[in-house]
């Protein structure tokens, strides 16, 4: 396909493709091996990071990323030029990782990871009159201060990993991958309402964990 054809295929409302992305798309459509290698090198890092966040395991993440690129190669005809390569590949990887999580959970019957937290125990508690049992205090450190410390970043990632999969996956897709509610619901085969409930509980549980483990209040 010519450059003009690729451009016109993106449509009037499509994304404006940079020249590298356009060349990769043209090369992939022409069956050029170098285009595939450029595709891999340009996207493998972020895709592996997504897979690793979801699967928490290097070998599984590598497997899923490899399968995703093979799927992209085999099904490049289905790539719609009105989306970005990154978005398309991201969805393939997320789909693959979620399928693997489901299979693993099905095989195990339930999660056997004793490190996981009980989300219900981390939600705020209220008296019958609606008043909280614990009055929230302001945090004494800013996000900027916290995020500049490598040790804190690692602690935050470990706390996310302690959430049960049904909460963790929603939090990752909504708050880290920044998918919207309907995309997340579709990928996880849930209703949008369930996504919202799980996201809210995951954030509340994580808020409590962070406050406690990072000693974020003056009374900590």
């Amino acid at each position: 396909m010519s450059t003009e054809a690729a451009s016109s295929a993106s449509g009037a409302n499509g994304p404006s493709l940079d020249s590298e992305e356009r060349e990769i798309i043209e090369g992939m459509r022409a069956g050029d091996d170098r285009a595939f290698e450029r595709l891999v090198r340009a996207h493998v890092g972020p895709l592996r990071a997504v897979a690793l966040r979801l699967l928490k395991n290097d070998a599984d993440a590598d497997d899923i990323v490899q399968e995703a690129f093979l799927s992209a190669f085999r099904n490049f005809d289905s790539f719609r030029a009105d989306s970005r390569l990154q978005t398309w590949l991201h969805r393939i990887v997320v789909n693959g990782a979620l399928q693997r999580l489901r299979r693993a959970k099905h095989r195990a019957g339930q999660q056997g990871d004793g490190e996981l937290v009980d989300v219900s125990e981390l939600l705020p508690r209220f008296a019958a009159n609606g008043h909280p049992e614990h009055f929230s205090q302001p945090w004494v450190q800013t996000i900027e201060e916290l995020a500049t410390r490598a040790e804190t970043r690692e602690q935050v990632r470990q706390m996310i990993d302690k959430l049960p999969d049904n909460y963790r996956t929603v939090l990752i897709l909504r708050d880290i991958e920044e998918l919207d509610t309907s995309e997340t619901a579709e990928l996880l085969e849930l209703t949008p309402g369930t996504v919202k409930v799980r996201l809210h509980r995951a954030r509340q549980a994580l808020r409590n964990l962070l406050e406690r483990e990072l000693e974020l209040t003056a009374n900590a």
Partner: protein
Amino acid sequence: MSEEEHCRAGVHGHRPDISCREVSEFLLAYLDRELDEPSRAEFELHLKLCPPCVNYLEGYRDTIALVRACTRDDAEGAAAKSCEGQPNQRPKKAPPEGLIQAILSAKCRAAAGKSSE
């Protein structure tokens, strides 16, 4: 008046139709601007009267921001640098060349299989 007294007070406290529990329950809808205007006004009136709920809301927002800040690729890249020499830290590795080569080899096999069909 202490924070606790404030929150429990009948005069300065909350209107009876929205409690701290409801603020907590509808926080996501409030932040996503999904509350209708009367509910939003009630919610914000409660926040004006209840410092603990404001603290909770700010901590909730900060949780979202901290999750993003600690998982962004550039943050991880910075982490890798600052983790050097710290064996207990999880350094962020560059995508292994071995993975790239494995993908390219698998694709060659797939292409060969495709052409022999």
